[in-house]
């Protein structure tokens, strides 16, 4: 068990390109931290620096308060699960799991090794496969062997480098649950790298969002979702992602391509330092068919506008409608740049709205839509900063998540006994 502290970590390659730039993260003992970001954001590099496979250009890495920058990987007592599993193909599953124990010469007797391997294989349901070679196993089984090799040694922390990206969607969901439960049960500090935001949201106590080597925001999944720090985080977290609408403020009204929206209460007084041109961020679920809300108290908490839906997608439990609009040329460059950061080509000039599954609105028809302005975020197009972010509410969400984690570890501990 250990805490891991990264202080102003920088990784510069020989050509001067900073793959990781001034990242400071504190991982508490027993915490499950996710590093997430689009490809090339430096998340894997950061993980490899923690485990010791990459040199740290500058900054300090502390494990339990001890500076370990210059230590070899084997001296750091961390265990790692690789993206491609990195199993030793010439060894049986049993010997793969026993490998780290056999390397620690003289530390364990054959009996102890056997006992430890059996415990790990029980935990991971590998008992039937111990004598097989990794080449004959399925993807999920290989994944479990890799996990077994990681847990067999009483390491100070687990590091995962996109461990599920080679599995098919169904298995991924199952392994995700298994990893989450295992981590909670063992109560071991973990750092998990992924580009998949579902994994990030479901697994992490806290999620660190990286872009081009820089830390954008580190918070609980709920805080990231509800109080994103900037355009990038807002666009990266959530699927379908947040809608970004260009808006020109005129006093108390935003003029947007889909209609006029009054400036909501929580935004008032926060926008004066920025120019007239702003970007509004609204999640699809904060739209609705105006008919569905007109008689509820919600109607007064938002604004309505008329729009023509280009098409709808019915998914059974919900329905998405698409509204096209004319993109404002002044923000197009900024939004396309954001789209590139998010691994897309360009930001489509459309709004995705979540409708009730029973809604009869169809593509091509005119509809009156309602938008919940209380949940709306306003971003500065230049800096990308979220002008309406409520720091306190965000901190509260993360504090709550932290307590839930402690309670769950406690609960699982008492269950074991």
């Amino acid at each position: 068990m250990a805490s891991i502290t990264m202080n102003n970590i920088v990784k510069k390659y020989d050509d001067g390109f900073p793959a990781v730039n001034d990242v400071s993260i504190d991982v508490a003992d027993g915490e499950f931290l996710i590093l997430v970001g689009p490809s090339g954001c430096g998340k894997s590099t950061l993980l490899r620096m923690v485990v010791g496979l990459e040199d740290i250009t500058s900054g300090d890495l502390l494990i339990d308060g001890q500076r370990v920058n210059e230590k070899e990987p084997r001296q750091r007592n961390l265990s790692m699960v690789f993206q491609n599993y990195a199993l030793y193909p010439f060894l049986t599953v049993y010997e793969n799991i026993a490998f780290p124990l056999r390397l620690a010469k003289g530390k364990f007797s054959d009996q102890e090794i056997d006992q430890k391997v059996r415990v790990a294989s029980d935990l991971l349901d590998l008992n039937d496969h111990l004598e097989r070679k990794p080449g004959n196993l399925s993807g999920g089984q290989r994944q479990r062997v890799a996990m077994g090799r990681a847990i067999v040694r009483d390491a100070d922390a687990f590091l995962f480098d996109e461990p599920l990206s080679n599995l098919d969607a169904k298995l991924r969901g199952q392994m995700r649950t298994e990893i989450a439960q295992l981590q909670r049960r063992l109560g071991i500090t973990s750092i998990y790298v992924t580009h998949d935001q579902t994994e990030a949201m479901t697994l992490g106590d806290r999620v660190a969002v990286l872009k081009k080597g820089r830390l954008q925001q580190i918070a609980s999944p709920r805080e990231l979702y509800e109080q994103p720090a900037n355009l990038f985080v807002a666009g990266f977290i959530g699927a379908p992602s947040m809608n970004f609408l260009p808006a020109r403020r005129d006093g108390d009204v935003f003029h947007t391509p889909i209609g006029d929206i009054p400036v909501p209460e929580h935004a008032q007084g926060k926008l004066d330092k920025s120019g007239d041109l702003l970007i509004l961020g609204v999640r699809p679920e904060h739209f609705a068919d105006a008919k569905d809300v007109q008689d509820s108290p919600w109607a007064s908490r938002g604004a309505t506008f008329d729009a023509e839906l280009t098409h709808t997608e019915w998914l059974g439990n919900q329905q998405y409608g698409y509204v096209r609009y004319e993109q404002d040329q002044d923000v197009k460059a900024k939004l396309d740049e954001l789209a590139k950061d998010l691994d897309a080509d360009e930001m489509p000039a459309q709004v995705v709205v979540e409708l009730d599954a029973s809604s009869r609105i169809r593509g091509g028809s005119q509809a009156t839509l309602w938008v919940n302005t209380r949940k709306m975020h306003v971003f500065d197009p230049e800096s990308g900063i979220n002008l309406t972010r409520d720091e306190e509410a965000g901190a509260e969400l993360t504090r709550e998540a932290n307590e839930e984690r402690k309670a769950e570890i406690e609960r699982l501990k008492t269950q074991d006994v």
Partner: protein
Amino acid sequence: MSTKQKIGWAIALVVVLIWSLFPVLSILMNSFKPASEFAGGGTLVPKTFTLENYEMIFTGGARDLFLPALRNSIGITLIATAVAVVLATLCAYAIARLDFPGKRIILITALAVSMFPVVSIVTPLFNVWRQIGLYDTWLGLILPYLSLTLPISIWTLAAFFQQIPWDLERAAQVDGATSFQAFRKVIVPLAAPGVFTTAIIAFFIAWNDFVFGIGLTSTGAARPVPAALAFFTGASQFEDPAGAISAAAIVVTIPVVILVLAFQRQIVAGLTQGAVKG
């Protein structure tokens, strides 16, 4: 494959087999012929079947020429192969894994050396070896053999090492291995098929060499079999030593055949399967 294609391939295979095996068959048959059959004409299959050629090289007149040569060939080739494989393994590992200045130069130089015509080196080497006392010694042949076997060994092994997923080594280091332990416990077993293949190629090159063998030796102290064959003589001046030469050629081919059959499985490098997602 359609039936037509299969038949086409079968025919091609038979043609290639006859093309490459017929000379061997011819030599094998010659080795069982008495000396009298070589004079004028002759048939492929010996009219009278005899072992006198084998008797001659093992116990008869050619014994003093052949047996020391066989001993030299085995000793020199094995040593040259072993040294080449060990050096090439370390060198290729560095080339595959490390980024250092001059990496390309090493590879290109190795290639250039292997392209260099052997005949043009023999004469200068003959002079140098005589000056420094390496002429007609085992070491005097092992060194030039290394220059032949090292380049190809380095190239083959470097290609092989590059295929081994680097993550395996990293995993070993995280699991608590030192760099050398990671090399010995993870890379070496994975590279074994590549090393076997390389060793066999190196062995053949050294085993089959004629030019160095004949140019840098003068007595049975270091003369290898291919060179020794050139010194075979018939029972009389007018008798062709073809029978004895054939017998000796068959004898030196046997280790090669055995090697290939024994390590066939290791040569088929399917071992990295399953290491990564596959």
